């Protein structure tokens, strides 16, 4: 099988550069814990998911670490910012890089991208490190590119994991 780089065929199609720009913006907002701005990046029906099994497929019918619709994302942001959760007050500091982008599907007003994410976390003299494959579906709504689906597949998803006081 030959692997080829997929290029947009129509001038109006979403380019990989556009997709990268949004994904990097999201990464920067999450490291800066600008959660209201992060919430605004999503479509109304968007799903943010972190599976418990690395190869999980039907996430709605599986147990996840997070399977968030808009209401649950808003509640999660409230939890992380209200100051009432002892595990996230203070939150850990994070620095993440997102790279190795590859277009996996493309439609008229949508693009699917898979990439690598590395997150370093620091709190209370302890550093931790996460690695994940992340699958994005981005859609254009009224001319604006939005997050419609984000699945974070941690390489150690099936292991014992300690609490996360931020978003991957």
């Amino acid at each position, binding site marked *: 099988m030959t692997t080829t780089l997929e290029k947009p065929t129509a001038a109006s199609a979403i380019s990989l550069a556009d997709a990268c720009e949004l994904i990097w913006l999201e990464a920067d907002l999450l490291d800066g814990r600008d959660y209201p701005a992060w919430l605004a990046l999503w479509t109304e029906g968007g799903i943010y998911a972190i599976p*418990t099994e690395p190869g999980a497929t039907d996430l709605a019918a*599986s147990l996840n670490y*997070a399977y968030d619709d808009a209401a649950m994302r808003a509640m*999660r942001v409230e*939890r992380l910012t*209200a100051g009432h959760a*002892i*595990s996230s007050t203070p939150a850990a500091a994070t620095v993440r890089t997102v790279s190795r982008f590859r277009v996996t599907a493309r439609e008229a007003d949508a693009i699917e991208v898979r990439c690598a994410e590395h997150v370093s976390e620091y709190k209370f003299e302890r550093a931790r490190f996460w690695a994940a494959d992340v699958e994005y579906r981005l859609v254009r709504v009224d001319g604006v590119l939005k997050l419609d689906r984000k699945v974070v597949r941690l390489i150690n998803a099936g292991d014992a994991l300690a*609490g996360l006081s931020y978003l991957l």
Partner: protein
Amino acid sequence: MTLPNTPPAQDWAALAEDDRVASSMYTDPALFEAEMDTIFNHTWVWVAHASELPQPGDYVTSWVGRQPVIVQRDRKGEVHVLVNRCRHRAATVCEGRKGKAASHVCPYHGWAYAQDGSLRGVPYQNGYAPDFDKSKFGLKALRTEDYRGLIFATFDDTIEPLSDFLGNAKPWIDLFLKQGGGFPVKTMGEHRFRFPGNWKIQLENTTDAYHFPIVHRSFIDSLDEQAEETFTFLGGTGKVEDLGNGHSVMVMIPELVDLEENLDAPIPDRFKALAEELAKTHSPEEVARIVRAVGGTGFNINLFPNVACSMAFFRVLRPVSVEETEIRHICLGMDGGPEAANRMRMRLHEHFQGPMGFGSPDDAEAWTRVQRGVHGAPDVPIMVNRGVGLETTSENGLPVGDVSAETGMRAAYRQWKRMMQA
């Protein structure tokens, strides 16, 4: 012949008094070694739920104290609990967490074991003398019994049957399993996490309602008004009851004790959409039963020493070292039940449990603080006296405290003390 592998006996039992325990209970490595032998090798330890290995040949790997075991269903359907250690030179023979296995073959020299643990194959057997007897080198098997699908194992052939050990806890387990909503209860995945602290901190927590409004404020804040009221149970009519043998039950939400009663009670707002969906394919009676069961029960059963039936899930602890404990929160569902109901159960589990849950990370943080704090003023005891002097007596002749009493912790420590002075 067992080789001596524990330090000489000490008066460990003196560390636990009726209403307080010594700080070294959480920190002394020698005590931890003694517990692993005296307690975990001599009582019934939960290893699996039958639905984790439904078919002949299915297995899961688990633990009895620090000892790795394989819980294996053979082709006839019988469950064997086998120490995961080759009888030759000790390598584990199975590294999967779950799966199907016709046999287990040691990766080191190829000794092959059947599903019941018997040794079937030894490569180049002519290197052993003719009197080498394979029947003496099967995987070490544990005594295995189950109660309604909860599988326990023990290394001790002399202790009472599991049914007697569970005793007064059995009717509560029966009530817990009613959350199948008319279907058998099955496991649907799990969240696992570790915290840097002693296993007894977790053992205490399952029977601790006192912490709930403090530690879990962010969870309570995320609920709708009705659910918030349901989860505001301190000062309510709940209770903690000592069930004997170290077990206890904490009833937080009395109206959710028997899920087959009050089936005509109004459906809470948060379950109305589910009820409407189920109504398309189920009778009103079935809808009422499933919806009443979907959120789980209103109580925690704490089973000494390592498992709890906790509202809607199994909570299993594993002591890793004196200052490290692993915890599994196993999600439960309705086996053969409607997918919409099982999805809702998974979403509810995710809401509280797991590294991104609205509850578990805060529990883990509180327990971590306990372990850090207990190194200060080690001469000061840990108090478990809440409710002492205020308790009544159950029909079983055992103490009952209000919902926030530390009655369940005292029950667990009484069993701990009984075992440690044996």
